């Protein structure tokens, strides 16, 4: 069965320091993986996606993620945190339902706090 686990429910960093948000997945198929960000009282915005091309994926706002099949991981990183990065982040795996249909399985989310 497919699943996704975000290893930290809350991460706190200082502005200007690196960000690491950890995600492990389980999938019977070669997975498609996504990271979304949600700012308070807003919907989810797609940060980046992995769909079996390059294993290092660059997204918006300076974020990137590396797909590591041997470790079944898809961790999200950013070299230098900004105050505006404070939000909740969701790791998501796409589940094959048959034919051309699929659904998404969401991790429980990681709240990122950025201290001045």
């Amino acid at each position, binding site marked *: 069965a497919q699943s996704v686990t975000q290893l930290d429910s809350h991460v706190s960093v200082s502005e200007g320091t690196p960000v690491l948000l950890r995600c492990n997945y389980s999938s019977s198929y070669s997975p498609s993986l996504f990271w979304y960000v949600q700012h308070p009282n807003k919907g989810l915005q797609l940060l980046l996606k992995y*769909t079996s091309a390059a294993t290092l994926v660059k997204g918006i706002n300076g974020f990137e993620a590396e797909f590591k099949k041997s470790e079944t991981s898809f961790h999200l990183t950013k070299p230098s945190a900004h105050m505006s990065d404070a939000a909740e982040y969701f790791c998501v795996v796409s589940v094959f339902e048959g034919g051309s249909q699929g*659904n998404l399985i969401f991790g429980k989310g990681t709240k990122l706090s950025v201290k001045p």
Partner: protein
Amino acid sequence: DVKVTQSSRYLVKRTGEKVFLECVQDMDHENMFWYRQDPGLGLRLIYFSYDVKMKEKGDIPEGYSVSREKKERFSLILESASTNQTSMYLCASSPGQGWNQPQHFGDGTRLSIL
């Protein structure tokens, strides 16, 4: 850019009322989805639709129904609202080509049932 618009940002209704949440997307996407989001539980799929007049149950369909009469519009209906349906509701859409397409989300409707 894909635009998914939910008709209300905040809504307050009473127990027993019939509640309609509307969602419209402007990118001709085949697939549309309704989720609810609760603290500690993450996002849970209520219903989805792969085509006009088609609907599929998600993980928590009880107490809800949906309607998709036009491709761009997907409505979520609470037949008789209850307090445990107080939540943030998120609508999403995705293109029909391929099973691994990302979904595009609206800004959500925060629904309170009193």
